[in-house]
């Protein structure tokens, strides 16, 4: 039954990675920013959950989600708004600067030491179904990912705001010309992305139990790679990339000989470089990303 267990772990890690990636993809789609700060939105949410640890769990969860949305929208209002229409390289570096600012604010407020928390420790318990033993957090992660992915699909495909978002992602100038209010749609995109970051932050801290201001790096790296493998600018590509990356990580962990396990990440990222070399446009490239001459 271990193989089934591994598959469940793979889906759970993949689901988490898909949340990371989707947060990045939503902002990229509308604003054209590859947002380095996304990883730090996740950490801000995680620190909020940690600061509210004494309160009842639902309150801490809501607090973290609110924090994720707030920091994301605030960064748009305070900084990214003024850089609309800049070229992608500048936007990328600008988000790099925002990430650095968030990290240093967290360092000033919470210190640079690793803090550990009991938040979500109850979820580490395994549950047994027949001979199968599954860690609760894996089930929770899969459920949260399913709900959020489903909800986002619904939002995008069945609501007026959703069609406006998709229109803005397709062609921002055109969307403005047909009367979509760019400011509002930009805030919606950052809010959705912040909500995803909030959920991801909660799952992150519940899984690891520890946090430092630099914790944002791992989710960020994962999100980047997933988005690029999947095909930048494509939301379904980001989800696919997240699942592929999660499944590959778990598969390498299980299948690699013991001597090679410490080099798991090196092997994983070499695979990433190889995959990019042969399919630089990603697996499910978005139609408006093709270069035109």
């Amino acid at each position, binding site marked *: 039954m271990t193989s089934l267990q591994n598959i469940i772990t793979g889906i759970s890690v993949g689901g988490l990675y898909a949340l990371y990636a989707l947060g990045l993809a939503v902002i990229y789609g509308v604003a054209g920013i590859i947002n380095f700060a996304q990883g730090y939105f996740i950490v801000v949410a995680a620190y909020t959950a940690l600061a509210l640890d004494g309160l009842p769990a639902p309150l801490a969860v809501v607090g973290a989600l609110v924090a994720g949305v707030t920091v994301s929208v605030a960064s748009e209002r305070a900084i990214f708004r003024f850089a609309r229409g800049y070229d992608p390289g500048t936007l990328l570096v*600008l988000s*790099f600067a925002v990430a*650095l600012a968030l990290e*240093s604010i967290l360092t000033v407020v919470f210190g640079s030491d690793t803090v550990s928390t009991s938040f979500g420790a109850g979820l580490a318990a395994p549950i047994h179904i027949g001979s199968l033993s599954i860690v609760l957090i894996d089930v929770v992660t899969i459920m949260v990912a399913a709900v959020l992915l489903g909800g986002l699909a619904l939002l995008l495909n069945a609501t007026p705001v959703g069609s406006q978002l998709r229109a803005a992602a397709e062609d921002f100038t055109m969307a403005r010309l047909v009367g979509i209010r760019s400011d509002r749609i930009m805030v919606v995109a950052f809010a959705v992305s912040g909500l995803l970051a909030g959920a991801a932050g909660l799952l992150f801290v519940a899984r690891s139990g520890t946090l430092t201001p630099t914790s944002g790096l791992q989710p960020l790296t994962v999100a980047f*790679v997933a988005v690029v493998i999947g095909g930048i600018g494509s939301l379904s590509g980001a989800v696919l990339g997240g699942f592929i990356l999660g499944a590959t990580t778990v598969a390498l962990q299980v299948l690699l000989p013991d001597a090679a396990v410490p080099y798991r990440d090196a092997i994983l990222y*070499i695979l990433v*470089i190889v995959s*990019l*070399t042969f399919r630089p*446009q990603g697996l499910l490239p978005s139609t408006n990303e093709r270069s035109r001459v």
Partner: protein
Amino acid sequence: MNGQPNRLVAWSATLWPIVVPVAVLAGVVAVVSTGDLALGSVGVTALTNLVMVVGLYTFWGNSGVLSFGHIAFVSVGAYTSALLTIPVTTKAFVLPALPDVLADKETSFLVATVIAAVVAGAFAGVLSISMMRLSGNAAGIASFALLIVVLNITSQWKSVTGGLITLTGIPTDLKLWAAYACAVVVIAAAAIYDRSGSGRRLRASREDYVAAQGIGVKVRRERRIAFTLSGAMMGVAGSMYAHGIGAFGPNDFYMNLTFLILVMLIIGGIGSLLGAMVGAVVVSILEEVLARWEAGQSVASVSIPIPVGFSDLVLSVVLVLILLFRPDGLTGSRELPLPRRKRRSSEASETEPIGEEVR
């Protein structure tokens, strides 16, 4: 034709933008050298960072292709240089499992630096074959992946790198003026590359990829050349890092250093060698002042108490402001212009204006 004076003007136009900053830098170093020992080591670190910024500029500035992975080559250079210069007797203690080939070798800083440059350059050259097929965002991510791969290997390959533990025992024999000499060599190499055919073709492809290809520029080939050269420069910086501080670990060559070098290059101006130099010097000074205030010391008898971690915040705010209001950096991504009265209209083209949309 009066070829002789023309050539003279052309040469001064070529040399002027490099000789002047290098001379100014010498002045700064001279001032630093009169300070205390602590200031001297700050100067060495600043010059090491300057070499990294110039190395990053040589690829990123000329090609316009993002790279977050260049610090990986610094890591390779630092480990190469350290393994070649840690005294044989010390090596038996700090790296007992080191293969014999390396265990009984011991060379000087100069030899080790040259070898570090060659190793890092060769590493970059091999990687460039696959990585230079990419551009734009995919290139940025691939270079980021490279950084992670090198960190993973250096922190796990215990018999050679000592793993996550800080590697010690490297002679701290890099003094201020030697560091300056290294920096001048690298700056000169960068300037020569800038003026070479390959450098010009690469900048043409930066300005307009399609047009450059249309006139026959083999963009991938030029990018491979620049990537390899900048890898070698990063290798030199790695060796300087190792010998300036004398101890380092794998995590020294990761995000913090990447952030810092990037900030320096952008604040100075990505599109020009002058920008790389100005950015490195300005940010180094700013960083040192903030670090002293953080530690509760005074600078020029001014002391502002600031909390730990605050200096990074200041740096990132400066970076945001520069990007929003002066995206071409302090220098506007231009080289130093000739003094006005020397310039004649016929030679004006030699100062080579750099495009506006340089990032």
